């Protein structure tokens, strides 16, 4: 059964408008920093998404900023009540993504809006697209900030959709980091490069919102099928013009080409997911363009990574946390929930657990830090079921009062990492070396019951009848909240 979903960004934009979560900007906006600055401020103020109708130098093109930088927009994208709570959205996501994958279907090119315009040869020129200069000081214009790159394994039928940023270098060349442990990193550097073969790619810009959610989710399920699970309906794909890859028919812009072995070009700096420009300008993966296809009046998506909260932080935290929940549940650990704080730029995950046996926090941390996803987790905070994992105040309270500053903290060294950690030293960044830490906020089971500190809260230290009386009379006492 199909859930309520939006097959393209145009429908999604209408839905945001209907929910008072869109600002349509009719006045001309400059792609050179102004558009980026607006999107940045939107992320920092949690404002409505900006929909840019006129872009300087690029008549006929439009842009859509911060498409998914709040839980409200995620709930709308999933066809849910816009006011759904984080646990409600999380449970719905887990429910939809634990069933059977839904295979995509192919549509005829004539029915695919992304083929309304086709540029090949000299026409396929990246500067004819309004790639924004997102932040002052970036290494170039980033056309691909909220998008995904399609690639196919050299020996198998495995197809990957992943979000890997791309900077425009010249008319035909883009460049960006592809981390070695990512699916595309393993494909390209593990298989194509040793054989010195170019790898076909297709960059999808302005995909429907759920494809974007899937592309940055760390699921083992192929992302197009994962999108189908989120939609409850198959994704409609169409074949590329200059290679054998398939892309969503309703996407706004497709950039086709080859990832080139044997050459790397300097990329970055760029404002990154941690809220800093950290990873250095250095030689990175090169994409050469063979064709550009696009819808009439295409709408470019613009995400602006920086201090929280942008869609990368929100959705990566969301999906990384929930993938970890699936892993811990599959191991039978008595967890009560997992929540990764978007404000932590997906560095800190909170795991709620019934402390059923000694060492449970270490067991959780070992699983988190031992998983494929470990480079994205630097801090694990394990709390007991007394703490609401979604309530930042309660988590900080537990961290500061229940975690012993020596015994409660366990460090994990020599872990895989990324060059993007602001806290890492230059040598650690160069070799993508990480470090991780567990904060165990459970009281040891060995403590005698009589010695256990008692949490002093309204819910915990008053008899039920007193609580009920106070709640019932709250307004009549004179309180307005």
């Amino acid at each position, binding site marked *: 059964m199909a859930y309520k979903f939006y097959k393209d960004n145009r429908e999604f934009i209408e839905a945001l408008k209907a929910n008072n979560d869109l600002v349509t900007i009719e006045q001309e906006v400059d792609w050179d920093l102004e558009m980026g600055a607006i999107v940045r401020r939107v992320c920092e103020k949690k404002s409505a998404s900006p929909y840019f109708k006129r872009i300087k130098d690029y008549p006929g093109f439009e842009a859509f900023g911060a498409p998914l930088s709040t839980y409200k927009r995620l709930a709308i994208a999933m066809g849910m009540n816009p006011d759904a709570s984080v646990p409600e959205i999380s449970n719905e996501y887990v429910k939809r993504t634990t069933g059977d994958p839904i295979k995509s279907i192919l549509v005829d090119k004539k029915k695919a809006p992304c083929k309304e315009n086709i540029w090949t040869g000299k026409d396929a020129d990246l500067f004819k697209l309004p790639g924004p200069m997102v932040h002052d000081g970036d290494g*170039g214009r980033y056309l691909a900030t909220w998008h995904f790159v399609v690639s196919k394994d050299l020996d198998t039928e495995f197809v990957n959709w992943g979000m890997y940023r791309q900077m425009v270098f010249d008319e035909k060349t883009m460049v960006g980091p592809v981390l070695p442990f990512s699916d595309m990193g393993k494909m390209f550097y593990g298989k194509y490069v040793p054989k010195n073969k170019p790898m076909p790619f297709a960059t999808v810009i302005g995909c429907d919102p759920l494809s974007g959610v899937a592309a940055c989710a760390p699921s083992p399920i192929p992302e197009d099928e994962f999108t189908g699970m989120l939609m409850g309906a198959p994704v409609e794909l169409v074949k590329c013009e200059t290679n054998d890859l398939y892309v969503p028919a309703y996407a706004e812009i497709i950039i086709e080409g080859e990832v080139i072995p044997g050459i790397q070009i300097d990329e970055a700096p760029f404002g990154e997911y941690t809220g800093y420009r950290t990873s*250095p300008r250095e030689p990175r993966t090169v994409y050469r363009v063979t064709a550009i296809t696009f819808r009439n009046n295409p709408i470019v998506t613009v995400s602006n990574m920086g201090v929280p909260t942008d869609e990368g932080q929100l959705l990566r935290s969301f999906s990384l946390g929930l993938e970890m929940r699936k892993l811990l549940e599959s191991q039978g650990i008595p967890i009560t929930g997992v929540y990764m704080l978007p404000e932590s730029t997906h560095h800190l995950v909170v795991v709620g657990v019934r402390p059923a046996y000694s060492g449970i926090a270490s067991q959780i941390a070992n699983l988190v830090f031992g998983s494929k996803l470990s480079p994205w987790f630097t801090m694990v905070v394990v709390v007991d079921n007394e703490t609401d994992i979604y309530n930042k105040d309660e988590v900080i309270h537990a961290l500061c009062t229940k975690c012993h500053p020596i015994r409660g903290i366990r460090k994990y060294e020599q872990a895989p990492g990324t060059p993007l950690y602001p806290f890492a030293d230059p040598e650690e960044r160069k070799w993508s070396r990480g470090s991780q830490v567990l904060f165990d906020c459970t009281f040891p089971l060995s403590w005698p019951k009589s010695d256990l500190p008692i949490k002093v809260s309204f819910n915990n230290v008053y008899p039920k009848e007193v609580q009920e009386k106070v709640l019932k009379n709250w307004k009549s006492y004179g309180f307005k909240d």
Partner: protein
Amino acid sequence: MAQKEYDTFILTELSQFPEDQEMEMIVRNLMPADRRYKYRSFYATAMISKSESKYPDRLWVRLGRGQLQEKPWSIKIIKEVNKFG
């Protein structure tokens, strides 16, 4: 001919950066005739000087995390180098 403007990222110690010798570097065009091509990068064989007036065009310098240096240098682009044949 009007002065053109470029910029480049320098990751090494600025004081040790070689001047007045032909070298290959990546520069970005900040003043193309068609504004849509602003920030187009290319490999160039060029000579540079820390003096703003020595060579015909202006070169702004940024450090590895994008920090713009206050004073521009100057550059003479000898030729664009095509890495892709």
